[in-house]
């Protein structure tokens, strides 16, 4: 006597069954959302409708799979749908941030004066054909440059210490550097303010802001640098020692050149991390709308501070300028980040 054979289960992810279930649930969700939002529920906005559609889709999809397959399959598939939706939401947020900034900011960026003028003689109500971010660009370049000059040698030397020299201190240093990456920007700014302005009597300046940025940048450079150095194959070091090199020669001629692109990545990531930091700059650099190319004396504006100042005017043109500067900042971050990734990938292959 043979048992009645069940229909053979197809284990491939995409087949006629699974695709048709997806399509059915999708069509159902879209039509239901359309009917309800147009006729019944007071859903006027795209975002709410999308949210409602997603929930409907998940429910319909579960019912669809459960009715044509099994309860187990339905649970599996609904879980997959939920995880996929979470992933898509995350990337939708990224796309929304980037595209919203681009849409609101591109008009300001298109004017030549945006790049060649300051807002020293421009009021917040003036049209976009007047005023620009020149002072902020100069300030950001100088502040981030000084921050990099301070934190890159220090961070890379610390990374070399952690990975090449080591010792009893290494564990403590690693823990503290980790903790440092968690210091809020505002606290870093407050610290520099307490030291430079309150204790040393130094005025607010681009240099003070640069030191605050360096504090934020140091842990990024150190941690990334350490990871990169750890990727240098051990046999290379052993070969260098076997040929009679001292440790310094090994590090200088073998380890650092091997890790060079990776170390550049570490620096780029550090710069990308701090170039848009507003909180540390807020307390330390002071604000002036005028071009001040001297980071050591007097207040100096930077791109984040420019955005922060302009956006608080309740006037369309000022806000457009803020979005223009935000677009510049975002573009720089994306370019730095992409460059860092491309370099990092070259290292791997």
């Amino acid at each position, binding site marked *: 006597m043979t048992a009645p054979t069940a229909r053979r289960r197809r284990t491939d992810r995409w087949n006629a069954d699974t695709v048709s279930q997806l399509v059915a649930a999708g069509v159902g969700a879209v039509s239901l959302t359309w009917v309800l939002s147009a006729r019944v529920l007071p859903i006027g906005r795209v975002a709410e409708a999308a949210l409602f559609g997603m929930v409907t889709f998940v429910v319909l999809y579960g019912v669809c799979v459960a009715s044509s397959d099994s309860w187990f399959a339905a649970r599996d598939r609904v879980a*997959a749908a939920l995880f996929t939706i979470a992933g898509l939401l*995350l990337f939708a*947020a990224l796309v929304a941030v980037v595209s919203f900034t681009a849409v609101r900011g591109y008009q300001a960026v298109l004017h030549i004066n945006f790049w060649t003028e300051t807002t020293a003689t421009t009021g917040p109500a003036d049209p976009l054909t007047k005023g620009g971010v020149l002072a902020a660009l100069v300030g950001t370049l100088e502040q981030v440059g000084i921050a990099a000059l301070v934190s890159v040698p220090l961070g890379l030397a610390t990374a070399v210490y952690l990975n090449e020299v080591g010792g009893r201190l290494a564990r403590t240093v690693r823990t503290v550097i980790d903790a440092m990456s*968690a210091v809020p920007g*505002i606290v870093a700014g407050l610290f520099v303010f307490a030291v430079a302005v309150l204790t040393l009597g130094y005025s607010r300046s681009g240099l003070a802001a640069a030191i605050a940025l360096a504090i934020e940048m140091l842990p990024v450079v150190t941690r990334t640098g350490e990871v990169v150095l750890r990727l240098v194959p051990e046999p290379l070091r052993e070969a260098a020692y076997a040929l009679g090199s001292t*440790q310094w020669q090994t590090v200088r001629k073998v380890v650092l050149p091997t890790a060079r692109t990776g170390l550049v990545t570490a620096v780029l990531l550090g710069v990308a*991390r701090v170039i848009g930091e507003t909180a540390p700059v*807020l307390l330390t650099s002071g604000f002036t709308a005028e071009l001040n190319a001297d980071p050591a004396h007097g207040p100096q504006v930077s791109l984040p501070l420019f955005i922060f100042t302009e956006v608080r005017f309740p006037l369309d043109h000022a806000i457009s300028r803020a979005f223009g500067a*935000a677009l510049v900042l975002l573009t720089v971050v994306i370019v730095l980040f992409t460059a860092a*990734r491309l370099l990092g990938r070259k290292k791997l292959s």
Partner: protein
Amino acid sequence: MTAAATSRREIAPSSTPADKAFRGTVRGAAVLALSVMGLIGVFLFLRALPALQVTGWRFLTTAEWLPGVGHFGVAAVLEGTILIAGIALLVAVPVGFGASIWIAEYAPRHLRPALVSLVDLMAAVPSIVYGLWGFFFVQPHLIPVSRWLSENLGPALPFLRVDNAETDSSFASSAFIAGCVVGVMVVPTVTSIMREVFSQAPTGEREAALALGGTQWAVVRRVVVPFGRSGIIGGSMLGLGRALGETVAVYLIISPVFAVTTHPLQSGTHTISALIATLSTESSGVALSGLLAAGLVLFLFTLLVNAGAAVVVNRSRSGQVTG
């Protein structure tokens, strides 16, 4: 036959001067990096001391900010900070968990490196850009959500009620909206930590689960999630640490109200970082010292949260200790 009486060559390595200088330099750099953290704590404490001497321990329990009469403390702003960070986690943890499982388990394999990079990029987007997006894009979309929550759940849950509910501005600039925006900002942090731990789930146990007839969901539920539990907790805590310190995005969105926030949907709240950002330019004397004391509280609080997170996450990683 006796060997020629050459003295045995000494091979115990003695460092060259260059080596000694090298080790000394990098060790010095490490100590310098180490001391920066110590200096932050010491200077904040020294500068906060005048204010702390005025208020004593009441600094932690006073909910008002009247430095002129010596009656000030961080209770209200600390509560606001924790409230906004808590709302942020309510947004960030579910999305981050789902997204990290999706990247680690479901996303097409050839896309995963790119997705990981995109998450990292999202973490690198400056907070002021999130602030602009939150104020001009998210807020108008969230006000109807706030209103809906308040009207439908408010009768049952009193803390969701809102005064003057007729106008939209009663719902704007609230702790809820700031929390949601900060939530989006910390999602990438949460996601990348969780994904890293999930992707380390042992292949053998995954395959065993599949071989026993488990679905992909069963693998996730019985292997990946239990294995990555420390990553879930640690990632959430790191996200919390990020959310606690967030300044500009919150500053741009909230309207500062110096009182304990009891109604998160109602316009107006305050956080420690926003307090410092608002008052630092116009304060002096004891008031300024009070701001530094508030900064010290924030500093110690984030350190505590992140140290906890580091302990939890490290428990799941193998040794990374140099000898």
